[in-house]
């Protein structure tokens, strides 16, 4: 394989959005925060599913996946932290009542089922003699948490 150059790498550059979901049972958000920062392999953990966008060529996919997996240990726990510290607006009850619940700390409670999903984008661009990859800082995430009775 020949060394790359600016022209070659410019053919690989782009920004792509990846969707992911993570499903687990019997853990709480604090534990998830630790797990995402240490042991979750986003490319092989069966609890973590990610979906690349259509249209990536194999090289773009390989590099994007590499960047994604490298960044996840620092990025994943921040997602969880945002759930722990944030104010929640929740709908609970048969009638679908809505209440703003300020300062709720969900983290200590064990979740019967926990599903977190979202979208993040990976940006690849040529720089110097190589490339730079980064994950977009402004992902949108959602969570579905079910607690034991």
């Amino acid at each position: 394989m020949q060394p790359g150059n600016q022209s070659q790498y410019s053919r690989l550059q782009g920004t792509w959005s990846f969707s992911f979901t993570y499903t687990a049972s019997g853990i709480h958000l604090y534990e998830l925060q630790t797990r995402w920062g240490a042991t979750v392999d986003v490319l092989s953990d069966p609890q973590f599913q990610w979906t690349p966008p259509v249209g990536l060529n194999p090289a773009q996919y390989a590099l994007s996946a590499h960047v994604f997996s490298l960044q996840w240990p620092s990025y994943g726990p921040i997602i969880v932290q945002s759930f722990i510290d944030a104010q929640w607006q929740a709908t609970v009850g048969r009638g679908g009542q809505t209440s703003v619940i300020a300062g709720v700390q969900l983290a200590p409670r064990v979740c019967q089922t926990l599903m977190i999903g979202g979208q993040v984008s990976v940006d690849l661009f040529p720089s110097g003699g190589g490339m730079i990859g980064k994950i977009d800082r402004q992902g949108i995430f959602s969570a579905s948490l079910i607690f034991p009775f």
Partner: protein
Amino acid sequence: MAYDESDQSDDGSEQDGDSSSASYADQDGGDGQGDGSTGAESVSNAEAQAEPPSNGDEVTLSDDDIAGILRDAGVEDDGGDQGGYV
């Protein structure tokens, strides 16, 4: 930061509606009005705009890094005059 709850598929737990002081534990139907039949409480589809990661790290990929990643992925250089890994 605000969370937006939209899913209505919960289990019928009681909501006390006290937005100023409620904690999640306050919603467990302890006043007897919840049916308690499902054995679970749920908070679902809470959406969030996550805080930006504080590190903002970029991953720098050298020529060797890129070659190794592509080799490991089984992606071969097309060998054309203009090179490229596509």
